[in-house]
């Protein structure tokens, strides 16, 4: 959903930028002054609108439940999966997790920086975090659909970076047998 909104907003705004560029460019061959006071008025309106839009979007997005850091403040997770990244493989303490439960991935690296990205069975990124040597990055995510999710490395980590792939099964709670609960 967020990706769709981002893509649509981008198409609309970029089209608008293109139209304004065309309009100003097309007018430029004609010579006529005296429009400046009107331009300053438009600028004042634009300035006010821009501040309102920026303030609004900042408030909505920074207070959103989708902020990746928000989940960490919500008590204990239901399941913890310890993940170790090393060139060029992932090691997960559990190969399956239950659906509709808060899963905490405790991510660490044994060598260089990696990127832990979870892809849905349809091939869309649903969550991600960097995996940095010397730190345990905690990523919390609640899977709402069962299925086989894939883990891809999204931080370039050397010549076989593009092969650093693993998977995790999301199962119904009754079928869940592993993990550190």
């Amino acid at each position, binding site marked *: 959903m*967020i*990706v769709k909104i*981002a*893509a649509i907003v*981008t198409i609309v*705004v*970029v089209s608008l*930028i*293109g139209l304004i*560029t065309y309009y100003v460019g097309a*007018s*430029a*061959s004609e*010579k*006529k*002054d005296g*429009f400046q006071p009107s*331009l300053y008025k*438009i*600028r004042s309106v*634009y*300035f006010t609108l*821009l501040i309102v839009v*920026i303030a609004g*979007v*900042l408030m909505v*997005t*920074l207070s959103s439940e989708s*902020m*990746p*850091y928000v989940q960490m403040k919500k008590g204990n997770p239901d399941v913890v999966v310890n993940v170790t990244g090393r060139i060029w493989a992932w090691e997960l303490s559990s190969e399956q997790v239950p659906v509709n439960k808060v899963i905490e991935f405790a991510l660490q690296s044994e*060598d*260089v*920086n990696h990127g832990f*990205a979870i*892809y849905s069975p*349809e*091939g869309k*990124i649903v*969550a*991600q*975090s*960097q995996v*940095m*040597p010397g*730190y345990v*990055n905690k*990523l919390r995510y609640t899977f709402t659909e069962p299925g086989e999710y*894939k883990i*891809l490395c*999204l931080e*370039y*980590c*050397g*010549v076989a*970076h*593009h*092969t650093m*792939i693993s*998977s995790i099964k999301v199962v119904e709670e009754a079928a869940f047998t592993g993990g550190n609960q």
Partner: protein
Amino acid sequence: MTSAQSMGNQKEITRLTTFMTVTVMVLFFVLVLLGFVMRAVQSTVLPLPSDLFYAVMTLHGLGMAGVLFVGGITAITYLLSKYINVNTMLLKINFVLIVIGVVLLLAATLIGRFGPGWYVLYPLPFLEGTWPRWAPLAATVSLMFLGVSWLLWQLDILRAIIVRYGISGFLGWKYFSSDVKGEEVPPIVIIVSVSVIAGSLTTVFGAFMLMLYLIQWINPDMHFNALMMKNLVFLFGHTIVNITMYFGLAIVYEILPSYTGRAWKANKMVAIAWNAALVFVIIAYFHHLYMDFAQPVALHIIGQVGSYLSTVPATVVTIFGAIGQFYRSGIKWSFTPAALGLSLMGWIVGGFIAVVDSTIVVNSYFHNTMWVTSHFHTYYILGFVLMFLAFIADYFEVKESGKKTLFSLVAGGYGIIIMFAVAGVNSVPRRFADYSAIPFEKVVKSGQSTALIASFFALLVIVGLLAFYKKALSQLSKKW
């Protein structure tokens, strides 16, 4: 300085400008070819071993950031030489340092197959067994030569500007007063001052990081804090790339008025906008670290707020100023003003794509996907490069309209960035030599097909560049 000395100095500056401009044009063209090769490899049309792909990727990325920065230095030095006393000896020293840096980088990447990517993220450059031990040393020393060269240039330009315009003038602070006295400060001076202050401050941090890299190379058992290193590399790298864009805008402010016939002067708004940009350009780099959950959340929020606010001075002052320049100006279109107008559009489009990605909740899906690649390629191909080519056309006095050339460059550029953006929306990761291992057919197809289409658009850019170079270089003798 006597008028004869001044004339001699101007001749020397012209020669140096020609020499450096042509060098930048050649290197830039080679790096564009490498970009084409990478897209062709990702589309599977061209075979290339992964280690060589990533070495080429590193050379393309570091090379573009460096070459375009040097292009900016060249144009700015020439344009500022009307107002300030430029140190030509330092320019020559700079050129030698840059050549040494480039040779070392070429050796590290093409011979040593050093391929950690353009931001050489610690500790990847020191991963044993990936490339020969001398390669990270050569790359580190290369970056040190380039960094020293750029720092010297920035400090000297700042010195020369302050000598000419004083403390109240160099950042346009005198325009804050209601009673402005003394001579006018051209906008280019304020923009360059803002840029080199940000650039030299962050280059010091970059130099510190490179010193740590050197220590790490000497003593492989040492380990530095990876989060600190990541902050350092983006503080330096992000700022250098951003001020390259500012150099491009300085070119626009300086040369556009000679085509529109309207003055573009500094005033209170311009001064406030660019002083604000100085703050935003330094804090915006935090948006590179949103997915590092060990970084304090407050810094992530500063990154998003700073990135959003940077649109205010950019659009309210520069874009409205540019509209005031073009609108009903009776302009006689030629390559330079057309490229400048389109470059401003490219700058704003690239900026908007960046603002979208600088939204933390969006970044969770776009971080390190092709969307990011779309943003900075828009900034460069459709923003700074067009600004720099407009400078070259102005400098070499290219009179033709160059409609076909410009169409080829712009259509090719938008084709390239749209393919990146489409791939990003489809969750295609960036920096993958080969998509075929991805376990989703849809993602593989999206990655490969967008790479193939982008290869054709890259060819269009190459054709446009060749046509432009032919026109510009035919005027070479005028400037020698």
